[in-house]
């Protein structure tokens, strides 16, 4: 199979065609408010007062978003609080993005007549860049150009028995076609790590998976708390999940059955295609930006929702430049928020579809979305802030 994508100079293919303005701040926001077809990132994680490791992590997010195939060209400004650090210099960000062959322009208030001057120059540049980007045409590309990322959330028992298995089928299909699929949430593989380690392509990868779990479990134990007072979260427990292990064993179904090629850090780009475990945190405002910075061009949230009443609108734009799909297998969640939901697999519980049939339908939904059909969340202009996964203390 194939989808209609925008082919970029580095050979990757986008499912969208945005001009990205980074980092966060008034210059970026002003340009995006004024110029159609632009995107920026909303976040408080600007790097000032952060350690070198965390600053590099922020740089990886920004560079990765810029290199994402859903971005046609990039404007980088030099007016963020963290810009004085070597990792976050505007020229460094711009050079690394430009290595992918796409157009990158730099705005610098010190050279462009101050903040007002940089905004005006940015508006003019952005209008031109959006116009130039519009000349790109979608062409047929193979499924090996798909890179997907998933998280499951508000999980209930429908997640493990019908929602995640449909995603797992999709993952197997994309990996078999030579594409790339990312899953993660280290806390939510505690109790299921042996099952994953058995699927690693090498003993070294298996050890990295087990090592990531050991570190996370030790952190959890160091709090002195029963993990169940934190995770499973209250909505999981209300939805019928009784332990972290049960949640984990249901959660890993979304990763399908393919061999695990490697373990990636947050926002780290895979060096080859295949299925990857990402050592990240489950928060949706954190995880999706990381997947997209790693190259994901479609992402999805597999929602349980059994423990949440009255949620009739599902907002969501945590993926900056990638379409974001809402999926659920819970009939009540679906009934409550039908016009927000892109894919429903409660049919598996109702007995009208097998997990494979539902997964095949999800695959077609992803192909249509990749080819230009809007994700329901893309019909909202609501923008959510990104919470980058930074783990070191601030000073």
């Amino acid at each position, binding site marked *: 199979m194939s989808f209609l994508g925008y082919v970029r100079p580095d050979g990757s293919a986008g499912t969208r065609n945005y001009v990205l303005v980074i980092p966060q701040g008034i210059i970026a926001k002003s340009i995006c408010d004024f110029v159609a077809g632009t995107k920026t990132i909303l976040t408080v994680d600007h790097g000032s007062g952060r350690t070198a490791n965390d600053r590099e992590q922020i740089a990886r997010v920004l560079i990765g978003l810029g290199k994402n195939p859903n971005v046609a060209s990039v404007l980088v400004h030099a007016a963020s609080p963290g810009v004085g650090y070597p990792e976050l210099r505007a020229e460094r960000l711009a050079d690394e993005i430009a290595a992918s062959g796409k157009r990158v322009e730099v705005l610098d208030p010190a050279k462009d007549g101050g903040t007002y001057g940089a905004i005006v120059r940015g508006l003019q540049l952005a209008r031109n860049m959006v116009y130039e980007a519009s000349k790109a045409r979608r062409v047929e590309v193979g499924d090996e150009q798909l890179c997907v990322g998933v998280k499951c959330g508000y999980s209930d028992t429908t997640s493990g028995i019908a929602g995640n298995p449909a995603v797992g089928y999709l993952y197997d299909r994309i990996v078999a076609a030579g594409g790339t699929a990312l899953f993660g949430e280290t806390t939510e593989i505690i109790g299921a790590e042996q099952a994953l380690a058995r699927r690693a392509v090498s003993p070294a990868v298996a050890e990295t998976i087990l090592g990531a779990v050991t570190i996370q479990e030790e952190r959890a134990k160091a709090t002195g708390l029963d993990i*169940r007072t934190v995770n499973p979260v209250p909505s999981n427990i209300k939805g*019928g999940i009784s332990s972290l292990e049960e949640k984990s064993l249901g959660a890993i179904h979304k990763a399908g059955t393919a061999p695990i090629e490697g373990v990636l850090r947050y926002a780290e780009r895979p060096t080859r295609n295949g299925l990857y475990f990402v050592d990240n945190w489950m928060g949706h405002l954190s995880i999706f930006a990381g997947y997209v910075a790693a190259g994901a061009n479609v992402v999805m949230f597999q929602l349980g929702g059994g423990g949440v009443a009255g949620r009739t609108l599902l907002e969501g734009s945590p993926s900056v430049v990638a379409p974001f799909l809402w999926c659920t297998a819970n009939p009540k969640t679906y009934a409550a928020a039908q016009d927000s939901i892109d894919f429903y697999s409660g049919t598996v519980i109702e007995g009208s579809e097998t997990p494979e049939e539902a997964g095949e339908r999800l695959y077609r939904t992803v192909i249509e979305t990749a080819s230009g059909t809007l994700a329901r969340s893309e019909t909202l202009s609501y923008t959510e802030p990104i919470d980058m996964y930074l783990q070191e203390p601030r000073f």
Partner: protein
Amino acid sequence: MSSKRALIMHASDNVATAVEEIQTGEDVAVPAGGAVLTLRAIEPIPFGFKIALQDLPRGEIIRKYGETIGKASAPIAKGALVHIHNLEGTRARGDLERGSER
């Protein structure tokens, strides 16, 4: 009266997940390979919650997906609801690290 449905995820599971609202005294059918296990619910089992397929003594390992999801923190009778009141996870238990094991 037709029985209510619950699902196991693996042949070695000792709990099944209700995919309908089950009331006290109702018969529950659990497809297992080619056969169907039947049992009676001894209390309400809400949609998405688990029912014990056999008597589970305190400390018994509870299995779903063919894997361990915790152990029985109290004796559990066949047909009873299995949830946080009688199942406890055994992983990442910082509270147990401090010697408060019950």
